[in-house]
């Protein structure tokens, strides 16, 4: 298969000793599981009460909407609190479960005959089981699979360096991955199934080839893509595999393609074939600040401290705790946060691995950032524009096409925190857009009111004129042809008509944008 290169990217120093990925290790159950609920305001109501006994897989909260996901208990136990707890770098209302160690589960009825079932039934099951993308974005699989695509791409290329969870899954669960591929191909109605893995994953390749040779398997093309960050990013992977580019602001479905992380595919398969809700995931533990680096099978809601303690504990080098990879991961202030569906990795980085806290220097316009930018932007120009407050110009340069992969900040010799700047710029753009939409709404309301008042006045005048035709026949003439205060009202009545059309167009655009905004999460790597 002919692979297309994508622009830019960086070759990051490998941090993975050995060739074959380590087999996933299990952890003892934590004494306490912390499950964040859908954000307040979303309609997903909490389905349990304090003191209630729950079993593994029991629903704690239903999906808030089509883009939300249901939350399930990670193990059996008693709900001890429904209260705010630290999650990631913030706080969220969480269901806290004191586990009882029995790990009883409450599976959904298996749908082993999925080939015969209607597609809607299967998608509904995925939604009920809370299956979300495990590649980092945690976008609900049901919503993503609702749009069919003739090309199904299973993404086994890690999104970031140092991550090994997907590789471990491919090495040690190749059969399940291929079974899941068939299910997803059925769901997408795909005619072509590609499984992308990185060229360095020799063990995974061998395992998959062995599994493909088995009877009944097949129909999946293995493609080894070059190990070049960020090849695991959806957009870059599509470019490499198909040579096409997802339109700016669009989604893979615009190219009739559907991209799913391999772990998400397996989770979907388990939800349908075994009736298992999403309650665990593979997490890479790494970095010089922690002992027992490897891949762990972790229940969602497990506190990071529990994972680290049972892996071997912190070393003296531990300097930064990162949820996710070293390029895009989120640094958190303490380890009392739970592992979520989006937590691909827990890295405890040593001071020697971290970027030096060197003071930021002025940009010397070396252009290295532009050379590595996979979105083919000019980061140095964006920097200058954002520093000057020229938000519009930056937007025109493609600020919103930035995928925040961090390649620019990684190479920058002046140590400028470019990604941070772009993130700030994007949120400023969002605020501006919201304000503009609000202003348009207010203007539309005002004009509608003015039009209504004018209409009322016109009707009043017409009524008065109709009631007294004899008393003022001369005055009735102009009142009938031009209601309200004659000619002036006629022009104002005509003008709002045009403006109303424009405003309706703006409102339509806004609705489209709003529909696209949450969907934008879907394309995160």
């Amino acid at each position, binding site marked *: 298969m002919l692979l297309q290169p*994508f*622009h830019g990217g960086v070759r*990051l120093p490998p941090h993975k000793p050995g060739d074959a990925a380590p087999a996933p290790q299990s952890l003892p159950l934590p004494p306490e599981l912390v499950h964040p609920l859908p954000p307040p305001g979303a309609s997903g109501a909490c389905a349990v009460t304090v003191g209630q006994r729950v079993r593994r897989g029991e629903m704690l909260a239903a999906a808030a909407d089509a883009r939300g996901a249901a939350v399930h208990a990670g193990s059996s136990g008693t709900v001890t609190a429904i209260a705010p707890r630290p999650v990631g*770098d913030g706080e969220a209302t969480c269901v806290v479960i004191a586990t009882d160690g029995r790990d009883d589960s409450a599976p959904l009825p298996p749908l082993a005959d999925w080939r015969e079932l209607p597609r809607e039934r299967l998608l509904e099951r995925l939604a009920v089981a809370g299956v979300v993308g495990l590649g980092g974005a945690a976008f609900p699989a049901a919503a993503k699979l609702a749009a069919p695509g003739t090309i199904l791409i299973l993404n086994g290329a890690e999104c970031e360096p140092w991550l090994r969870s997907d590789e471990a899954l491919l090495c040690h669960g190749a059969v399940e991955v291929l079974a899941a591929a068939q299910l997803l191909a059925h769901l997408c109605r795909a005619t072509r199934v590609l499984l992308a893995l990185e060229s360095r994953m020799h063990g995974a390749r061998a395992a998959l080839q062995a599994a493909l040779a088995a009877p009944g398997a097949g129909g999946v093309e293995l493609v080894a893509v070059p190990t070049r960050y960020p090849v695991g990013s959806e*957009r870059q992977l599509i*470019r490499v595999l198909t040579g096409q580019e*997802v339109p*700016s*602001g669009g989604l893979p479905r615009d190219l009739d393609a559907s991209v799913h992380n391999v772990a998400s595919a397996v989770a979907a398969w388990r939800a349908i074939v075994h009736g298992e809700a999403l309650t665990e995931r593979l997490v890479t533990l790494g970095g010089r600040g922690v002992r027992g680096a490897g891949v762990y099978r972790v229940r969602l809601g497990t506190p990071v*401290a529990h994972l680290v303690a049972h892996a071997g504990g912190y070393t003296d080098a*531990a*300097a*930064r*705790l*990162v949820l*996710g990879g*070293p*390029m*895009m*991961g989120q*640094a*958190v*202030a*303490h*380890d009392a946060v739970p592992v979520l569906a989006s937590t691909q990795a827990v*890295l405890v*980085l040593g001071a020697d*691995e*971290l*970027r*030096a806290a*060197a*003071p930021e*220097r*002025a*940009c*010397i316009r*070396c*252009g290295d950032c*532009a*050379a590595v930018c996979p*979105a*083919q*932007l*000019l980061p*140095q*120009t964006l920097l200058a524009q954002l520093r000057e407050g020229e938000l519009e110009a930056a937007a*025109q*340069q*493609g600020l919103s*096409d930035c995928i925040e992969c*961090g390649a620019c*900040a*990684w*190479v*920058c*010799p*002046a140590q400028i925190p470019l*990604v*941070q700047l772009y993130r700030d710029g994007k949120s400023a753009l969002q605020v501006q857009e919201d304000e503009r939409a609000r202003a348009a709404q207010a203007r539309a309301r005002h004009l509608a009111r003015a039009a209504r008042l004018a209409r009322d006045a016109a009707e009043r005048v017409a009524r008065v004129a109709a009631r007294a035709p004899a008393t003022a026949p001369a005055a009735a003439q102009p009142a009938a042809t031009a209601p309200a205060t004659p000619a002036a009202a006629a022009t104002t009545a005509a003008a709002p008509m045009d403006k109303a059309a424009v405003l309706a167009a703006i409102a339509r655009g806004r609705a489209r944008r709003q529909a696209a905004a949450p969907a934008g999460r879907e394309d995160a790597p």
Partner: protein
Amino acid sequence: MKAFAVAPAPHIHAGRSVTRVMGHVLLALLPGVAAQLLFFGPGLLLQLALCLAFAAAFEAAVLRLRGKPLLPHLADLSAAVTAVLLALCLPPLAPWWVALAGMAAALLLGKHAYGGLGHNPFNPAMVGLAAVLLCFPREMAQWLSPLAPLSLSPSELFDAVLRGVPPPTLDTLSSATPLDTLRSLAHEGRTLAEIRRTPLFGNVGGKGWEWIAAAYALGGGYLLWRRVIRWQVPLGVIGASLLVSLPFWLSDPDTHPSPLLHLVCGGLMLAAFFVATDPVTGATTPRGRLLFGAGVGVLTLAIRRWGGFPDGVAFAVLLMNLAAPLLDRVGPPRPYGHRRAGAAP
């Protein structure tokens, strides 16, 4: 519960820094320095020492005035690069005040007046060079015959540079540069073949200069290999020079120097790899860089042919610095997912 300090992603870094970039440039200049020492004697060492000392002094003084910390800014080596570039362009026996004026113009006017490294629109070394070319035309014209300065005693050297007393043998030592000779002789109507027979010329270009140019190209190759510079600028300079001079030379090889002669004479090679590649004052897009380099090459040749100075590299670079912001707007790359036209889809 263990607490950690947080910081924005990415959490790792390639380990490149401005200091390392400048360090690579200094390293890459070593072959050129060695070649120039070989042909023009240890006067260059004095010029280097003077320029570096003035650079350190000016840099420190301005940083103090601007209330900036000394160490991180001095340690970025950018002033050292400016100093070495200027020293390489000064005649080996030029008196010390030439270096002083050059560095003052370079660092005070060319760099800090605009806000320091990263904010200067003009290449500081070329600002310094242009200033001394205009202020000290006589001193700047006193280039020595290749290999001749090696006969100077150290005391004569020190007298010339530090006290401004030229050695008694100056007239026999000094000569015009090959480019000067080309200009003046061509204006007298002599053919190139005759000129080329004068002892100033070697096999390809000016005697000695051809080796110096090769040494600069070697250093430039190192910078390309270390990815400190990109290929667009050198290709632009060299390609445009060759393309522009080739038709002239082919049409009349008796009056027009060959493309190769143009390349190896004067500062064109130095400019191609070390001056026009200055990222701060050049264009940043790949296409802009190609145009920037081509502009430097064409303007240099034009100044050599029609201008008032034998070598126009400094002025060519400064003129192109002026055009850099415009060149940045030529053909920006098409972002991923956008259509060819560059407009948002």
